[in-house]
């Protein structure tokens, strides 16, 4: 370790300490099981939106996008646009009804809507699967960051992040994590905004040098040429726009709102916060085009945000800015991992560990045991499986979510005739289709041409497939329509002022 590692090390230690301190402070408010799962449903829109922003902006947003834009150019802009637009789709289709359903988790919603233990089990399996698919790249990114920033061995990042997340989640559950994540949104925004402002001044002082533009298709927002490029772009758009509502750590947040109206207002504030954040990674990429050509040549574009300050600025200034972006990146891993761990733990608690621990020991003990399982398994996965690729793995998690929970939620909320058999068949079709394509891609199987495009970006065919199967089987099994379906829909769509809400 040398002196260049000092700012990064200080940043990581500070973020860890502050995260633990806020989590411990939030502990004073956590008493009941409801606090642990959904912060007793009392989080106001401004705080909740900051927490959602903090949780949602993962390693892929903080580090990945700038690197992707640097290498891939304008077609990668669909990632930030899609991650934001996903919240708009979620807002108009599911936000308020989902909150009014009164369920704790996605499997709760499915069981309440369809009255079927089998659908519940399928949903639990999917939540855990998607959660782990999303957690592994977070842990990997942590390893990458710590190696780049302080030269730590690759296992150190995952272990540190996993340990801090576990400490926070098991001590205070959702209540304390809400405060931690709200803080981490503003930390991430600061850590992106301040360096970019300084670097823009440096760039201006250098006489505003320009990279040659346009010649290599860097400015064309379509991936590649011809029909395959167009398909890949639209399939990515479908996965991102529709997948957000199906991510377990996103959905669980909506249950922390006081009511459906607050759920909607929270989502609007989230859109504003995400837009504010996503304005800046393209600026890093544009500056990287001018100053960081070396990173592209070495295939290390993922660390662009971490290295750009030192490439443009010598001495103390570069060190301070490096410390700041390292802090932001570390906050990104911690907050997203915490949110995912909470969501997966919530499901594991309800469906697995409560039975193991026994009712008399209480829900909190079961939640803590579930959190250990939820963090340790993907942690081991991240240590065993290397180099999956942060953005690719996250993109596949979106595709699976878009092909399973998106049809289930949208049809469950808006279509009375959905049956348990239809839901199961649709989840199986979408899950096996998109999940199979994801596993094939992660295993390194990539035929060229159309077959490769269909496997690498499955959403454009797997989402319609899941919807068709769900609708078709539901219509064929119309006799199984749950008797309470109408009453349930009334509750989902009735404004709280009428007193028809849960409880």
């Amino acid at each position, binding site marked *: 370790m040398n002196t260049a590692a000092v700012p990064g090390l200080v940043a990581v230690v500070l973020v860890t300490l502050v995260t633990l301190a806020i989590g411990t402070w939030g502990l004073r408010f956590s008493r009941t099981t409801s606090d642990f799962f959904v912060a007793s449903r009392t989080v106001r829109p401004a705080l909740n939106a900051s927490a959602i922003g903090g949780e949602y902006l993962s390693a892929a947003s903080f580090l990945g996008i700038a690197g992707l834009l640097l290498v891939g150019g304008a077609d990668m802009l669909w990632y*930030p646009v899609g991650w934001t637009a996903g919240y708009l789709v979620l807002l*108009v289709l599911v936000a*308020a009804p989902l909150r009014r359903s009164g369920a704790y988790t996605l499997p709760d919603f499915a069981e309440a809507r369809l009255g079927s233990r089998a659908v519940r089990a399928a949903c639990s399996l999917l939540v855990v699967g998607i959660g782990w698919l999303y957690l592994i790249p977070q842990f990997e990114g942590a390893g990458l960051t710590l190696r780049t920033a302080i030269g730590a061995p690759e296992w150190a990042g995952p272990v540190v992040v996993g340990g801090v997340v576990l400490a926070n989640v098991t001590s205070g559950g959702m209540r304390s994590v809400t405060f931690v994540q709200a803080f981490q949104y503003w930390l991430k925004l600061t850590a992106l905004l301040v360096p970019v402002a300084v670097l823009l001044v440096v760039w201006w002082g250098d006489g505003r040098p320009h990279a040659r*533009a*346009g010649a290599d298709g860097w*400015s064309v*927002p379509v991936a590649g040429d011809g029909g395959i490029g167009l398909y890949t772009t639209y399939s990515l758009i479908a996965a991102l726009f529709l997948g957000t509502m199906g991510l377990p750590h996103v959905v669980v947040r909506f249950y922390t709102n006081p009511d459906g109206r607050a759920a909607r207002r929270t989502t609007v504030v989230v859109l504003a916060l995400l837009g504010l954040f996503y*304005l800046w990674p393209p600026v890093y990429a544009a500056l990287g085009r001018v100053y960081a050509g070396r990173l592209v040549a070495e295939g290390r574009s993922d660390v662009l945000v971490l290295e750009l300050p030192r490439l443009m600025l010598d001495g103390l200034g570069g060190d301070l800015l490096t410390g700041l972006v390292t802090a932001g990146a570390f906050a990104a891993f911690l907050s997203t991992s915490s949110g995912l761990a909470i969501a997966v733990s919530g499901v594991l608690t309800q469906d697995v560990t409560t039975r193991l621990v026994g009712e008399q020991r209480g829900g909190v003990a079961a939640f803590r045991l579930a959190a250990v399982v939820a963090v340790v398994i993907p942690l081991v996965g991240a240590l065993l499986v290397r180099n999956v690729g942060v953005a690719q793995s996250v993109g596949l998690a979106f595709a699976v979510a878009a092909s399973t929970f998106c049809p289930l939620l949208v049809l469950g909320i808006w279509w009375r005739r959905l049956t348990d058999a239809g839901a199961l068949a649709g989840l199986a079709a979408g899950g096996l289709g998109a999940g199979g394509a994801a596993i094939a891609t992660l295993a390194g199987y990539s035929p060229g041409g159309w077959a490769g495009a269909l496997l690498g970006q499955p959403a454009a065919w797997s989402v319609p497939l899941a919807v068709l199967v769900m609708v078709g089987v539901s219509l064929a099994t119309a006799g199984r329509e749950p008797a309470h379906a109408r009453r349930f829909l009334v509750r989902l769509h009735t404004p709280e002022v*009428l007193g028809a809400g849960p409880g």
Partner: protein
Amino acid sequence: MTERVRVTGPPRHPAAGRPASRLGDVHEQTALGDVYLRSLLREQLGLAVRVLGLLAATLGIVPLVFHLAPGLADAQPLGIPLPWLLLGVLAHPFLLLLAWRYVRRAERNERAFADLVHGDNADNADSPETS
């Protein structure tokens, strides 16, 4: 002879046997409740579909436009390449505007539904001549 008249205040509880609101209709699956819920569902779903349609007709056609006319990518209004200006900057305030308008309309629909079900004129609204 003057008759005795009992003097009372306004009733403290709604008269028994008559529902205070139409919410009962919505819950109890009566034909009337069915009509109310269908109308709210249709309004809200129509609103959602309109917002998503607008999203598809604006952001959604960007890849197609640039696929058909790749030369557009070289345009540089304000010194920023057009795709970067559209997707990197303008897309975010546009999404926020769509969301804000959606929330206003959705809350207005819910207020209208609440007035219909819960309205002060719930008693005489049953008679057809008042409508």
